[in-house]
């Protein structure tokens, strides 16, 4: 175990530095880069807190779609397998299972990458 501050706490501090002091002290493309770097630190801060649980759930959900045991599997291999099976085509039942599963996985990913993005679900545009 590392000592406090935790990774998440340190990343929040780096984000504060980038978004406040450094942003104010720069201009033009460098200012934009500082803003982007600050936003990336916020993402990594959330990833440090939520990432492990998100990935564990992703593995469970993907394994469920594929009808395989989740134990000992990783998200990358399961994603590759799912892509391969979707690519082979023609499995309507698999596609119908995959859609809500991927929506759930993306809610978890967006809670880290862009909280709130999933609040808009395009209902008004599908009328």
């Amino acid at each position: 175990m590392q000592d406090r501050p935790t990774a998440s706490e340190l990343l929040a501090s780096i984000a504060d530095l980038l978004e406040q002091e450094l942003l104010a002290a720069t201009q033009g493309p460098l200012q934009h880069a500082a803003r982007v770097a600050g936003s990336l630190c916020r993402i990594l801060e959330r990833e440090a807190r939520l990432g492990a649980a998100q990935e564990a759930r992703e593995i469970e959900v993907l394994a469920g779609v594929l009808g395989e045991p989740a134990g000992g599997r990783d998200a990358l291999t399961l994603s590759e397998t799912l892509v391969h099976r979707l690519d082979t085509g023609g499995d309507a039942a698999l596609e119908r299972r995959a859609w809500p599963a991927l929506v759930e996985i993306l809610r978890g990913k967006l809670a880290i990458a862009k909280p709130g993005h999933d609040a808009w679900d395009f209902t008004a545009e599908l009328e």
Partner: protein
Amino acid sequence: MNPFEQVREGLAAFLAKEWGATVEVENLSIASAGARRRNVLFDALRDGERIPLVATIIPNAAVQIMPIEVEASHLRFAEAAGMPAPHVHAVCEDASFVGGPFFVTTRVAGETIPRQVLRLLEKDPALGPRLARQCGEALARLHAADPARAHPRIALAGSDPIEATLRAVEALVRELLQPSPAFTLALRALERERPPPPARLAVVHGDFRNGNLIVGPDGLRAALDWEICHVGDPMEDLGWLCQRMWRFRNDALEVGGFGARADLAAGYEAAGGRFEPVRFHWWKTMSTLRWGLGLAGQAKAHLDGSVPSIVMAASGRRVAELEWDVLMLLRRSFAP
């Protein structure tokens, strides 16, 4: 001589030659400096007349998507068609004047940065609907023009741009650094629900969106950035304009965060276009998938060292947003 001074003298020398007059260049400023192009604002003084201009310079000819004279010809084509586009004064393929090929256009006053465009709307609530309608009218005029009159080197998508786009996107999905089940699923649905080839092909802008428009209090003044202009399905431009990423958080206003689809469609039809809702939805969904792949491509360009940049790196963490958007747009295909 510093590079700035070199550009100033190069522009003056080129325009003097082009116009057969004495020309001075003043008030030079760099509006944008990307890897692929630089936009330089300046005033040309000719016989006491002050002419506000922009030079679009390709700093490295190796990275240009299309030759500069082809891009300039698209602006001329659009202007002749009655679409607001900056007037082209001159084209220069000789890299010796300013360090790369360039063209010179009229400088159109107005806002281009999306958040500034949306701020104009806060001052005038009638501007958004008007702007959406004007976008429809402008695109209808462009699409009505005969593609046979475009530059012979304009990019073609074959007789069926739907098929060509599906194949290009399929290749990009396969080349992703990480597998994307969401994009794979989306591609399957887009393949299955593909519309027939369009009744007629048109010259399409290819990147007509909030961010590439010059907007004033009166509305649309010009469409910029014609480098991926090509012959394709007219609904492609409308779908691209309406994807969520160009709304800049004004999600409920489908057209660039400033207007409603009904206003866009009304403008398009009033100017002689035919708005096709099913085809539009297909292209909007396809545009969303494409931009997701574009962002993944930016992250890849950072990681493989071809364009190392924190901004490009950050794009990789935005891909999930587009995966979400594309799955929501296809909800009816999988969750009736």
